[in-house]
Structures are given as C-alpha cells and as structure tokens.
C-alpha cells in the first residue's frame, strides 16, 4: 500500500521540450554512466517487421517523438520518481521503495526476483527488464564505471536520477564542511542533464527557492505526464506549445481547453 510520501527535499527534473532536439546525447551518457551494455541492432527483427522493438532494449531514458500532424517535438522520459509510486505499492520483495530524503525511488537489484509486477504497474513504461544476460563485447567490460552494479538476467532496472551522483555530492559537501542536506544548485545533476547540448534538462530541489527548478515548475508552461492518475511525478515538462502540453494526458475534447493552459500541480 503506497501512500503519498513527502520529504524535506524533493529532487525534480524539468525538461523543456521546446529545446530538445532529439539528439540522443542524454541517452548515450546515461547508458555509459550506468553500465548499460550496448544494445544489439535487432537486424533480424527489422528485416522481418521493418522496425526494431523497444521490448528487449535496455535503456533507462527513452526519447519519444511527438507530432500533431504538422509540428514535431521530442520528449525524453526518465523514471518519474513518482510521489505516489505505483511500482512501490506492488513489489512483493520490497526491491523498490521510496524512503529516502529527496524522493528518489530506489531499485535494489539483488532483492528483485523479476516478477515484473512493477513493470505492469508503471503507467510510464519507465522500467525495463533484463530478458537476456547483458553482454559486453570483449574488452568493453573493462570500462565499467564504479557508479552502479551490473545487473543480471532476470532483474528489473530503471532510472535512478543518477543517485550515485547525489552520494558523491553529499560527500563533497561533508569534506568541505557544508551541510549535505542543503546542496547548492548544480552540485547534483544527473548525467543526462549535464550533457544536454541545448540545456533542455534542468535539475534540482523543487522545494528550494535557490534552485532554478523552483521557478520553472511554477511556470504556466509546465505540465506533467498523466497527472490525473495521481502519481505525482517528480519529472516536469515545459512547452510553450499547447499541442505539446495536450500530449501530457488523454484529454477528452471538452477537457482540452483547460488542459492547454498548463500549470503543473506540484507537491
């Protein structure tokens, strides 16, 4: 049973869709940082069906292409780190939980036994399953980062907002004699936000007025995905285009006017 979790710090990511070019730098950086094996190119599937599938692909951050028939936009979708995570409420092994200050939903690989109930539960398809043993070409396993453990076949994984970077930032604060619970803006930024060439991704504590995201989440252009499900995501999107904001949920025709005005409900 998952109840709404509130912590003194709330790590939030604001993605400005109007600045996302779909270049994929965020995905590549995320994959390298978090020890995700290179994905096979699905040649046989493409030869047969004409296009690859996301089903067996391991990536924590997926970029969706949105269109309204004439205009196009790109939407990168990490784990929403929901304030009320449906995945946490269904995990039989408590391999995932939302119990840390900051609100990042943890995913502990040794504890997960791969029932995939969380995957069925997540409305954002943010979780991926290791159907096969990840394979690194010979030599590439020497370039693993110390940041995350390597996952085995049979385990679910998901974006962690590069939680290891939060730990490193806190340690740096401790050594500098500062308060690790009061990190300044920019001390902790996930890999995707760090590399984005157009700066589409902003990250910080949405409860802290000194962080840039504090103002951004209060913008009239800000919206969240599938808000009406009550998941209270910690990932916010911004767009000056009404049609993009309408992609945030399955709106009926008579609801569109009010939805197009934007304004995220932030916890």
């Amino acid at each position: 049973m998952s109840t709404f979790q509130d912590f003194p710090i709330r790590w939030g990511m604001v993605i400005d869709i109007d600045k996302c070019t779909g270049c994929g730098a965020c995905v590549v950086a995320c994959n390298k940082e978090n020890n995700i094996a290179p994905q096979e190119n699905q040649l046989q599937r493409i030869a047969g069906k004409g296009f690859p599938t996301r089903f067996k692909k391991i990536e924590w951050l997926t970029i969706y292409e949105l269109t309204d028939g004439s205009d196009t936009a790109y939407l990168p979708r990490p784990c929403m780190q929901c304030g009320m995570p449906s995945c946490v409420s269904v995990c039989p092994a408590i391999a995932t939980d939302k119990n840390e200050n900051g609100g990042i939903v943890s995913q502990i690989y040794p504890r997960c036994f791969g029932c995939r109930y969380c995957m069925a539960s997540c409305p954002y398809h943010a979780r991926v399953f290791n159907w096969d043993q990840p394979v690194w070409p010979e030599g590439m396993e020497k370039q693993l980062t110390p940041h995350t453990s390597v996952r085995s076949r049979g385990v679910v994984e998901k974006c962690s907002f590069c939680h290891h970077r939060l730990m490193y930032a806190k340690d740096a604060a401790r050594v500098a004699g500062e308060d690790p619970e009061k990190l300044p803006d920019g001390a902790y930024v996930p890999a995707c936000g760090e590399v984005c060439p157009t700066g589409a991704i902003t990250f910080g504590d949405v409860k802290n007025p000194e962080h840039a995201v504090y103002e951004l989440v209060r913008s009239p252009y800000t919206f969240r995905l599938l808000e009406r499900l009550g998941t209270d995501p910690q990932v916010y999107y911004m767009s000056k285009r009404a049609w993009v904001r309408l992609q945030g949920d399955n709106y009926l025709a008579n609801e569109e006017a009010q939805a197009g005005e934007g304004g995220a409900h932030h916890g």
Partner: protein
Amino acid sequence: MNRRTFLSFAAGAGAGLMITPIPWKLTDDISIWTQNWKWNPKVPKRNVFFAEMASKLDPAGTGVRVALVDGVPVGLASSQDHPLSGGGVSALAAAEVGLLMSPARVRQPLVRTEAGLAPISWSDAEALLAEKLGRAEGDVAMISGDDTGTANEVFAALMHRLSGSFYMMPGEAQSAHKALEKLGGEGHLAYDIEGADYVLLLGADALESSGTAVRNARAFSQSHPSGQPATAKYVYAGPVLNNTAVVCDQWIQARPGAAASVALGLAHALMERGATARANGLDAFRRDVAANYSPARIERETGVRADTLRKLAAELAAAKRPLVIAGSEFGQGAGARALMAALGLNAMLGRINVAGGVKIVPEAPAVVQGAGSAASRYSADLVPFLKKLAEGKASAGVLMVYDANPAYALPQAELMAQAVRRAGFTVSFSSFMDETAELADLVLPSSMALERYDDVYTPYGAGQAVYSLNRPLARPAFDTRATADVLLSVARRLDIDLGYLAFKDVLRAKAEALGADWKALGRGAVWTSAATTELVPDLSAAAAPAPRAQGEGLLALAPVAKHNLGSAKVALPPLCAATVRGSDLMVQMNAKTARQSGVAEGQAVRLSGPGGEMTARVHITEKVMTGVVAAPLGFGHTAWDEYSRGLGDNAYKVLAAADDPETGLSVWSDTRVNIATA
C-alpha cells in the same frame, strides 16, 4: 550396524546439525551467492579522476572531461569552461570513450596476403611502406579527414617532399576555405553566434552536425531561457525538420541544396529595399543577383514563397545583429557556393567583421616546412580525382587514407570503393575496420584521441581562434600508434627530414608559435585569441549561377545526418545503438509526396539516383517538405562490427558529384531521385 543404528546415528547427526553453523551459514551464504553471480563483470572500486580532452571524433571539437579509474577511461563529463562546449556533450562525443574497446577496432598492423589481412609488425610495416613510397616516384596521394589537427602539416609536408598530392575530405571546412578564397580572403570563417539576435540557418544543421554544433546549441540555449521570452530568433531554411529545425523558432521549407539560392534571393529582396554592402565587385554582384535571383524565381526553384522571402528579408534588416550561416544540410557536397552567397548576404547586412556577425580568424602559423597553408591543403578536389582513379584515367601508386572513410562516405560510394581498390598500394590509418580499411593493402591503425598526442585548432564555425591540446590519457589499448609519428618515422627511412623527431615536438612548436603556454595546455587549459583579420569581400563571383541538379528523378533527395547514428568517419558506435529508432532507418516523405509517388507507410522501396540505388522502407511524416524524400546517412555499412554492419542501406551510393569549374569544388547537394516499390 543395522538400520535402526544407522537411523539413530542419523537422528543424532540431524539434531547436532541444528546447532552447527552448517545449515544457517549455508543458507545465508547461498542467498548472498545468488546476489553476486560470478559471471557478471565486476565494477572498479577506485576513485574517478577527470582529465580534459577535446573530442577529435566530433567535428564540433567539443571539450570534454574524461573520467578515469585506475588509468582506464570509463566515461565522459562535460567541460564547463571549454569555449566550444560550455558544458554540453554531443551524442558522438559521449560515445567516444566507449569506442576505445569497440569490436571494430583494429588491434595491430595488418598486411594484405592471399588469405586476407594478416598481422605484421610495426617495423616490417614501416619498412614496407617506405619501400612502396620510395618506388612510387611521386605517384603518391594522401587523403586526410582531420579538419582541425596539426598532423595535416606533417602529411602535407611529406607529400610535398615526395612530389605527391594531398587531399582533404570534402566538408564544411573545405567549403569555407574555398569560399573565403574566392571572395579574396584568407583564414577561418568564424561565426559569433553568441552575439547575434537573429540567426538564419540556410541548410546548415548548426545545432546537430554542422560546425561547432555543441557551442551553437549552448548559444541557442542561452538565448532561449525556459519559460521566458527568447532573446534571439533562430530560423532554419531547409527541406527537412531535422534536429536543428525542430527547436528553431521558425522552419522555412526550402528544397535540398537551395541554401545559395535562398541567400541570393534574400540579397535581391534587400536590394529592393535599397540595401548596399561594404564590398568590392558590387556591380557584378548586383547584376547577377538582379538577373537570376528574383523572389519569383526563388519560389519556383527552391519552394520558398516570394512573400516569405520578402518577410524574411525585412526581419533580417530590422534585426540589430543578424547572422546568416549557410551550408550543406548534411555536412558535405554544397561546394563553395552556399558560403559565398551567405558571405555576400552578410556583407549586405553589414555583418562582416562586427560583433555578432561573421569574422575571419587567422590561420594558425605553420610549423612544418613544406606544409603549405591550410587554404592550399584544402584546394584539391578529392571526388573528381577518385572518380578518375576508378575509371583508370588517373593513377595512384600509393594511396594513404587518414581519419577518413572514402569508400563509404562519398557520393557514388561504390565507385569510390573501386578507386580505393584500383590504387596501386592503399594504406589505411583508420582506428577501426571501416570499408576503406577492408580494401586496403596495409592497415596501420592509429591510436584513438584518448591514447595519443593531438590538437584541435579552431574547428569550422568557432567564434574565435581556439586551440586545445590532447595528451594521451590512457595507455594504448592495442598495438596502435599515432599516425603522425609513424609517418615521421617512415620519412626518416626515406632520408626525408621533416624537422621533428616526434609529433609531440611538432605540437610544442605549434603551441610556441601561437604564443600558448605548453604546460597550461597540457593541464587542459584552452588557448583563445580574439584577433581577427579585416575582410572587404570581393563579391564579383558570389552570385554566379550554380550547377544544375544531378539526376533526372521526380523527387529531390535530402540526405539527413544525425550524429547519434555515427558520422562520415565512424559507424554507429555500440553505445549509441540504443538510440536508433525505427523511423531513423526509413526514407521519409510527407503524405502528399507519398500519394504522388504511389507508396504507402512501411512499404519497401528503391531509390534510384545519379550515383546508384538504395533500398529502404517508407515512413510518412510531415517533417519533410513536399516533393522531397529524406534519406538517413550512416547506415548500410559493410564493415565495422555487429552493431552497425548490415543495418539499413548507404544513402551516399545514390549521390553523384557534379563539377563546378567556377569554384573548383564539385557539388552534390541537389540530387533528384526516382522511387519505385522494391
């Protein structure tokens, strides 16, 4: 001993077992064992250190910080202070570290035997190359794809001493040098994009694959703060809503290769409003523009409506600091015309030699005798030479290829591969087993940028002179060497003294010549200079009519370059394989074009153009203008590794180059193709 005794014994053992550690410890240990499967690779435990590097793989020359654990590069972080990155990292640069151990890497020198490529030692390989070069007696050619490195000076100087020819791979940098030369200038074209309040991109994919894309993206980011009104307007004119256009404030649909025409059409519209330029050759320029680039004609030829053109001209005139950047939509093939026309337009807007406009950055001083100037190194046109070589009309006793893949990434790719085969003795210095290396007689693998000394001077599009030095950050993963060092050594075997013992000394001389601090450079500092050269352009040739489109087909072909899929030099990096979408592999057109061509979504088709054919499936999207079919670049590899080999088809095959005697650079940015169901 009978059964009951045994059972009694067993019961005693069973009871005793419960008060030994065995069942409890074993259960605990087995559960731990299941959490740490031994067949999973272990991660390193030591600390991460960062070292600065300028990406050589990414033409944007992005500065990055390489994360190292125990001397092994494990990742990349952004470099906030580097002027060419400002904290951003492109998809290609992000994959560069992972390419170090890519399965496609050539692990040692190889020589061609009857049975294929076989290992050879470095000393034998150098001796073989020296022998071939000595016997060639001037019938030597070298191709380099490195647009920013001082290594070219070593190569060009060696060619000069051997009386051979030196070619740079065609691209934006070559086009820029040629355009500047035609207009009476010399040096590097620099765009002060951070200072502009209106940026018009004609074809040039400036936020993704053209010029200093990461820096441009940063400038775009600064001028478009999230949720606030933008402080600059970015307009993209081109046939496809590519990664650049999708974030620009306005997309103007213009046919492929139309950059020059649109620029001159805008010049026409400005002239209608009475604008003039501080330039020479104005009469010839005005005459050509008035005669050939009326808005009505532009509308017919490029698809840009006359009223749109006039409105655009009005906006440019009203802007305080407009900047026009033109180029090829896919990084090569526009020749010099687009840039010449854009310079003419910038001159008409008064944007040359001013803040927020176009500036000329001086060439770096040459430090190797006989290397010539950068402009001279860019002057030879590679594609016609390779065409002649393929057709038997030219010869190359020895053909050396560095940091380039001409057998794949040039128009009429299959013919280019023929040329590589026909050369007497082909040497590839590629780090990877690419299409050219697979055809080579000798493969002398170059160490990657992480593993060698190298430098980056002012990539095309940089706003000022920028110089970065790369030290080796990791021991070479395989038996590879820096090519400049190899050729210095080969030169010595031929009794040619280029003046330096090792390439590191060449770089030290370069740093000194620039007035840069070698030690600071070694620590990752970047040398910059705001010094510019004045240019009063000679516009007499800037508006001369362009060659006609190549091919007789009904649809215009728009090749699209996306750097997460690889580039002209590198196939899809294994780490980027996750970013390939289904539609990336497909040729794309809008609904109207599909109806007119009689094709449906997902249908397998064949595109035939002047250079050859390619097969793909069709994807219908409104991201492409009517009458145009967009084809992805970077697929259809036949070499490399399992991540890229056999995926899709090579769009370069369809393109064919046309001579442009006016500029001396062939063009292939306007290609017509036919589409048929396959």
